[in-house]
């Protein structure tokens, strides 16, 4: 991996640009508990960035900070060259950041199609009145959005469950639908919270392919939290390692894999 000024080129030929998101000296406390302390790293345009660490390392907290859901007591979050103040979730969504959740947060009673359609919400412009009566702008708009949703269904190969209520789907497929809903917002930065948790090997392989394809086809920048080291090392360009709320490693997968601090964090160190 060669550094080319602001960005670099990955071994498989993708061009990674300058930073999209920079977190600087973040410290987050819940009462007396310090979840994150003094963490800094960046996420660059077009890369797959992983945040890993053992249980309780502060990964999800970190994602929630990036997401704007938590407001850190110290430190700054810079998004596309501007310092970000406290925001409401819908404001974040309008910035082009979408996410999935560790515990699937879909509308269980709604179909796959409707769930993904709900991801288009930020794109809908028609007034509530015309939507309610489905005429004029609303009708045109729905056709347009339906097409976008169908492209996602095709992309994620979930045609067979288009009209199935998601509550009836197996876990792995629900995860895929959730990814679909996040994609529906056409984000420029996609945050994935343990996209492969609880999946079997085959489902993990499928999901890895979808993540790489999203990155490749749409040029979406991806930041993901993952437990499974093997998967992370295979699909990410750069990895941040957290342990007890501190950053203990940051770099390309191969470098991180051989880092003694990282190995200790994952395997433990013997007590003298």
């Amino acid at each position: 991996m060669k550094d080319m000024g602001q960005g670099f080129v990955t071994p498989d030929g993708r061009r990674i640009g300058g930073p999209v998101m920079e977190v600087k000296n973040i410290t987050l406390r819940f009462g007396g508990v310090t979840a994150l302390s003094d963490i800094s790293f960046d996420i660059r345009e077009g890369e797959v960035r992983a945040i890993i660490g053992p249980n309780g390392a502060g990964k999800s907290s970190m994602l929630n900070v990036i997401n704007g859901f938590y407001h850190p007591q110290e430190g700054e979050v810079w998004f596309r060259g501007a310092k970000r103040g406290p925001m409401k979730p819908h404001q974040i969504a309008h910035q082009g950041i979408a996410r999935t959740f560790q515990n699937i947060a879909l509308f269980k009673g709604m179909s796959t199609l409707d769930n993904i359609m709900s991801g288009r919400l930020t794109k809908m412009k028609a007034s509530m009145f015309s939507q309610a009566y489905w005429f004029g702008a609303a009708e045109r708009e729905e056709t347009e959005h339906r097409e976008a949703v169908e492209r996602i269904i095709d992309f994620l190969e979930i045609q067979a469950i288009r009209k199935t209520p998601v509550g009836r789907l197996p876990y792995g497929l629900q995860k895929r639908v959730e990814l679909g809903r996040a994609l529906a917002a056409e984000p420029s930065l996609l945050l994935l919270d343990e996209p492969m948790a609880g999946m079997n090997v085959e489902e993990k392989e499928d999901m890895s392919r979808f993540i790489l394809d999203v990155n490749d086809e749409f040029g979406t920048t991806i930041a993901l939290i993952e437990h499974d080291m093997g998967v992370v090392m295979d699909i990410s360009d750069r990895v941040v390692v957290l342990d007890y709320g501190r950053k203990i490693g940051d770099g390309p997968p191969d470098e991180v894999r051989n880092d003694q601090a990282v190995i200790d964090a994952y395997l433990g160190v013997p007590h003298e």
Partner: protein
Amino acid sequence: MGDHVAPPEALDTLPKILDWNATARAGLPASREKAFGIWQSFTWADVREEARAFALGLLNLGLAPGDRVAIVGENRPRLYWAMAASQMCGAVPVPVYQDSVAEEMQYVLDHAGARFAVVENQEQVDKLLSVKDRLPALERMIYVEPRGLRRYDHERLHAFGEVQARGRAGADRAEELDALIASAKGADTCVMLYTSGTTGKPKGVVLSHDNILSAARSSSVFDDLCAADSVLAYLPMAWVGDFIFSMGQAYVCGFSVACPESAETMLSDLKEIGPTYFFAPPRVFENLLTSVMIRMEDAGTLKKWLFRVFMDHAKRVGPDILDGKPVGFMDRLKYRLGDLLVYGPLKNTLGMSRVRLGYTAGEAIGPEIFQFYRALGVNLKQLYGQTEASVFITMQPNGEVRADTVGVPSPGVELRIDEKGEVWYRSPGVFVEYYKQPEKTAETKDPEGWVATGDAGFIEEGTGHLRIIDRAKDVGKMADGSLFAPKFIENKLKFFPDILEAVVFGAGREMCCAFVNIDLGSVGNWAERNNIAYASYTELAQHPRVYETIRAHVEAVNRSLAEDPMLAGGQIHRFVVLHKQLDADDGELTRTQKVRRTIIADRYAPIIEALYSGAKEIFAETEVTYEDGRKGKISATLRIEDAAVVPAQRRAAA
């Protein structure tokens, strides 16, 4: 322009017929495909334009007459167009099973010497790239679905659209293409299909345009197919049936071929498209029926009652109404009512509302399953065919449909049964040769053009229907010289849901005896309903009332065997219900659940001896292997019972 106007006989290749269709049937739909959730149609004029553009692109890339073009993927209109385009260029399409692993694919492509491969997606591209070192002849790959392939080296890899764009840009070669189409003859190779080959390596069956067109033309007339028909192409493109239905017959009749969105959406696509002409192996019909029955179990009391009452009625009169036989007015009225309340909605759910012609083939279909669909008013028929025959050997004419025959010889087919009982045929559809295997060709096809099917069967007196008994190599003789067809009898037994597996002995013996395995699900359920307590499989198997049931089944099989003088000798005199299930872990079955006769005969020799010695019971001890590899023993005293046999009778002339 009527629906039944066929292209002139003088058009002797598929590309010539496509040209004719593009004018005579210009506006009629030819292919359908679901793109982004909406069905898209292509007319015959569109298909010709698309295929021509692709053909010109292939010429531009250097495809030459006589080259082989591998086609790998699930049913997609573009892959069908690619086959037509190859034929336009005088090249030979070779559809390959898309689910085969890289090694199998490598064998076929290498044997066929394919220079080009048109594949569906990244998965297939990856597969072929992984074996490209062993495919020296393969020069170019063209893919339909670009997803994930953007970063691949495109020196010898092309997108389908890009090849078409090349073709459209280089339209100056159109005259050359027209000349190639015009110079092709009916004797030229139309397609090469590799048979899956249960024994040894697959063989490339070479079929000419004459083969395909004569089979397609005569079968279309036989079943009155027309341009208004439609099919769903969901069976593998490498299978001869799909080629005949989706290319041969579709071109000749001008009907439309819809491709499912994906393999998983097949059932909902079936419902949306509502084909009029439907083909499925017995397994598919069985699964559909099972899913209906399971859903009926969960239905409310009223629905269950309606279903039971009207299905009973349908089973009684439905098939006769379908065959146009006389049925009483009240029965007809009740059937109409049933159609409104039960059959119609059910057929709609199954996607068979519009099916006016359904075929099943490949293996024996259970009579209840067969009758179920016919009772609903679905004209399900059986045919018997082979790749080597361009499918059709025999078919059932309307009005003469039965579960136990495969029909009368298709138009133009001659049948012959040799002294060993093996079925031979000769027809215009008979294949040219096995590609690059003259000795194999000679083994299968004699100099006069007769082809051995490898199946034993006989032609029923009176009706002229062919009945297939078994694979020829499995058929033996009993001591008195009468025919012994174990698989045929076993299948008859296995059609009873209570019987999971059966093994019949009798080769070289005076009489037939049988081992029976009960189906724990079905018999266990029955025991529960009848308050019969049992502690183990062995105990249930030996229960006197289970024996009663099984004896009734065996005797029913005997009665049906007695109806055929040729098979009457195979009636089962004595039987035993085994104390354990035959299991692949014990080597008694193959991994595909086929019985291994010799191993079973060896392991259970004392029981067989007892069957023939006239003993009333036998103590048996059998070693079993558990799933984790440990071994144990099961022992039990088994009852041996006699079953009534019926003297052979002549079937009354039909």
